[in-house]
Structure formats: structure tokens, C-alpha cells
């Protein structure tokens, strides 16, 4: 008997985005530190410690240092983590513990606008974290410019992709502890096997094919090319993959939240 829910999305999602920005501004000093310090720790550990064991590595006919190899991966992982964690743990807290969404749904905002605002905000956090981290990495001369500037809009696209899948998880998990499952099954494998710390060519064929399904593999690839100052039309395939991924998971995230909240 239930009428089919009518979806309604307008520019108003920006109100939700503004709300999150307002809260972020209050605690920005804490938010600022991880993307600034994390790459420095990695570069010290991998550049000075681990890199010495490996020396130069061969990447697409280029001989580059191990640090230069993993730097773009750090940026890509940072994009993934910021949006994913924002739209899982942080969104869940707003939805379940703070009941923020309930309050918003008594105003002229629709649930679709609330969720869209949340995902766009998650992507925005990816962009902010990328800008900070990229600035730190640039001091080490690890990013080629002007190509490297394209990483910033790319962070937004990547943020939408990972935020959407995070929101899908938020729509499904019964409790906040259950986020361990997508973290363990999805985020950690991607963190390790997306051409982040070693080239995927080193994997057996089946594992390589599997890794090509990961959105992070494509994101790492584009960021790495741009960081090395390489740009070519072939990168559009990777961008296209991320767009298609977002186009699938964004509505799924909305749908899952609709199922969860509108009763």
C-alpha cells in the first residue's frame, strides 16, 4: 500500500554542506594536523627506512625513487579515507547519535538533499585534506607542476566515489561497530593492492584483474601520472571509471538511507 517515495533534490543540499562546514570551522585545527603530519611520517619511514632497501624502482620505463612512487599513493589513499570516514563514522554519528538528520527533516529539506549535502561535504573534506597534504609533499619536490594542480579537482571526484560507497554502508550497518566489516573487506585490501606500495604488474594475473575493479587503483594511477608530470588522453579512461562508479553508488547510497530513515 505504501506509495512509492518521491525523490526530490534541489540546490538546497548546499545548506547541509554549509552546516558541516560551520562545524568543521570550529574544530579545524584538529582536522588540519593529520594530512599535514601523516605524509611526513610516511616519507621518513619509507624514504629513509624502507626506501634504502629497495633503491630505485622501475615504473613505466621510468627509474624513480621509492618515495616518488608511493607519494601519489599517499595522496590517493588520503582522498579515499577522508570521504569514506566522513560518510561512514561521522555521518552515522550525525544520523544515529546526534539525530541531526531528524532535525533537518523538520525543515524545508528533503532526505535526498540531506544525504547529497553529506556526500558533497565528504568530497569537500577530501579536497581540503588533499590541498594540505599536497602542499606538504610539494616541499619535498615530489609533485610536478602544473600537472599536479589537476589532483585537486580529481580529489573531489574521488571523494564522491568513496563517500557514496561510505553512505551506502551507513544506510545498511545496524551499529557503528559494523563499519569494521567494509573497512576490513574493502578499504584495507584497496589500501594494499591498488598499486599503492608496489606496482600491480607484480601481482599474478587474476589478482591484477581483481585490483582493476578497485576504484582506488584508478585513482592512484591518475594521481601518480600527474605527480610525475605525465598527462595523456588515456587517463580519461580512469576518470571515466570513477565517474561511472560514482553514478552507480551515489543513488545506491541515497536509496539505502531512504530505506533506513523514511518509515
Amino acid at each position, binding site marked *: *500500500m*505504501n*506509495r512509492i*517515495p518521491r525523490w*526530490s533534490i534541489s540546490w538546497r543540499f548546499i*545548506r547541509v554542506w*554549509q*552546516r558541516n562546514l*560551520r*562545524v568543521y570551522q*570550529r*574544530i579545524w585545527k584538529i582536522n588540519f594536523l593529520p594530512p599535514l603530519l601523516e605524509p611526513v611520517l610516511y616519507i621518513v619511514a619509507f624514504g629513509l627506512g624502507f626506501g634504502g632497501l629497495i633503491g630505485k624502482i622501475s615504473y613505466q620505463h621510468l627509474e624513480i625513487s621509492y618515495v616518488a612512487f608511493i607519494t601519489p599513493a599517499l595522496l590517493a589513499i588520503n582522498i579515499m579515507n577522508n570521504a569514506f570516514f566522513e560518510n561512514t563514522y561521522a555521518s552515522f554519528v550525525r544520523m544515529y547519535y*546526534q*539525530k*541531526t538528520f*531528524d*532535525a*533537518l*527533516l*523538520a*525543515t*524545508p*529539506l*528533503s532526505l535526498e538533499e540531506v544525504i547529497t549535502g553529506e556526500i558533497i561535504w565528504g568530497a569537500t573534506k577530501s579536497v581540503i585534506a588533499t590541498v594540505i597534504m599536497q602542499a606538504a609533499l610539494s616541499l619535498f619536490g615530489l609533485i610536478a607542476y602544473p600537472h599536479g594542480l589537476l589532483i585537486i579537482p580529481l580529489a573531489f571526484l574521488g571523494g564522491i566515489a568513496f563517500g557514496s560507497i561510505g553512505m551506502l554502508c551507513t544506510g545498511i550497518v545496524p551499529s557503528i561497530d559494523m563499519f569494521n566489516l567494509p573497512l576490513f573487506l574493502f578499504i584495507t585490501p584497496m589500501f594494499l593492492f591498488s598499486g599503492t606500495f608496489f606496482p600491480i604488474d607484480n601481482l599474478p594475473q587474476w589478482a591484477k584483474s581483481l585490483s582493476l575493479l578497485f576504484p582506488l587503483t584508478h585513482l592512484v594511477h591518475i594521481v601518480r601520472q600527474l605527480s610525475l608530470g605525465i598527462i595523456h588522453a588515456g587517463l580519461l579512461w580512469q576518470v571515466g571509471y570513477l565517474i561511472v562508479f560514482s553514478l552507480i553508488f551515489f543513488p545506491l547510497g541515497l536509496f539505502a538511507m531512504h530505506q533506513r530513515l*523514511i*518509515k
Partner: protein
Amino acid sequence: MQYIIEARNLTKQFGDFVAVDSISFHVLPGECFGLLGPNGAGKTSTIRMTYGFSPITDGHLEVFSRNITNDWRAIRYRIGVCQQENNLDPDLTVQQNLELFAHYFDIPGKEARSKAEELLHFIALDHRKAARVTELSGGMMRRLMIARALINDPQLLILDEPTTGLDPQSRHQVWQKLEELRSKGLSILLTTHYMEEASRLCDRLIIMDHGKILVQGKPSDLVAQHVDRHVIEVAKPSAELRAFLLSQHLKHDDLGHRLLVYGKESDQLFHTISNCYCRDDCMLRMATLEDVFLRLTGRELRE
């Protein structure tokens, strides 16, 4: 007459469970209308449909003579909702909470600030405007929730259990504020578990149970119709008293350890009962809405 809310055969189902079962009621302009009922009666479901949070399963629901399903957004601009659970923003200050909420209603910054200050004054929280919400007491949070629901100058205020969990002082303060709002002509839809609250605030009310409306009317009329004016309460009633009540055909409820006798002019009866059937364990009091409520919805626990 234009109704503020008009519900006709309004129904809400969750799967096979019927939470609201074809109820009809209307709220008039300037009226405070109460929804009463035990837990699970369907009060909150009704309220959630009224502000367009829950889609209606069947029937017809209009707010300001507009269909809630189609015009929910236009309707929400003109209503204020104070939900059962406090959902203020813990990361923000008292004043920021109000200003941010104004923003959702497209109220520009300057106007939002002056409106927030006006409301903080109204709820007597001016001195705490820079405090974090987490530092407030339960009563202060509740008042802030009400202030937030007023940020858009609503024509209808919807309150879901506004005083649950408050101490008596805070509760009376909330009542006083709500009376002030009502006297200014604001229409109010209210759910509550407190019969005292309903008697004091509501012009008319309905008592619901299992999704259906049991009775509808003015609090005083409901008391007069269902339990008369006076109640004689007898603790540890004797068998003789029971026999006496039955022989006189008096309206009463036998709770085992306690007896309630209802009547219009009970002075004489009270003397008879207290002299002949019990010495200290009986008292005469005014009948209340609570007596009506318990008579109609029964005394079993609802869990």
C-alpha cells in the same frame, strides 16, 4: 472555516502492523490540540505524517489546506517542530544552533541573528547564548528546542512530548511559555503523557489507543462525560463495600487493592462510605483527565 490540520481516514502501516488506523480529526486556527494515548498508540506516527516526515499509507491529510504529500516543502516553511528527542547540534553554541536553523528556512544572516536573540530572550537563555549545548541542563535544552522550532515564525507548532523527563520547575516554565504562545494565537499540536499538561494546555484533545481514536473533545467535557465530577478512592476495600456499591449501582472501578467510585455530588456518599466501610483509607477528590484516560485505555502496562 479553514482548518490548520485536517485528517480524514488517515492511516499508517508498517508492514502488517497498523500504527494509525483510519483516524479523522481537525485542528482549528489558534487552537491547542492534544494527542494522548499510551505508548504505541500511534501519536508519534500521526505527528510524523503531519510534518511530512513519514509518508502516509492511506487517507487524506491537509495542513493549511494543502496536501502534505505534494506540498510538504511549502508546508514545512510554515510549521515548527519540536521532536521528542533533543537533536540540537552539540558542536555549536546555543546561539549558533538557532542561527543555523534559520538558515535552513532561507532566513538571511542579519534577520536570523535578531530573531535568535529575540527567542533567546523569550526562553530566558540570553545569558547562556555563548554556551555549548552540552553544557545546558535538560530543561534549558528543551526550551532551546522550542525556541528553535519558532525560528521561522511558524503558524503551527508541533510538539512531541515537550516536557518528558523534565523536573517540575522546568516543566512549569515550559508550560508558561507554551501558554504565552497560545495566547498570541499560535496553533499547537501536542502529544503528551502528562494529563495535567493536556488539561492545562489543550483546548481540545483526542485519546488514542492501538491506532484508533477513543474519544475526542474538550478536557473538561471528557471528564464530565466519562467519570463525572468526583472520585472517591478507597484503599484496601472490604467485601462489604463492594457489595454496597453493587447494590447501589454506583459507577466504579475495582482494581483489587484499590477502588475508585465516580459520582457527581459525592459528599453524602463519601460520608456514608467513610463512616461505614473504611476509616482512614479513603479520600474524596476531583475527577481528572487521568481518570478518563485510565478508564478508556485500561491499566495494563504498555511495553
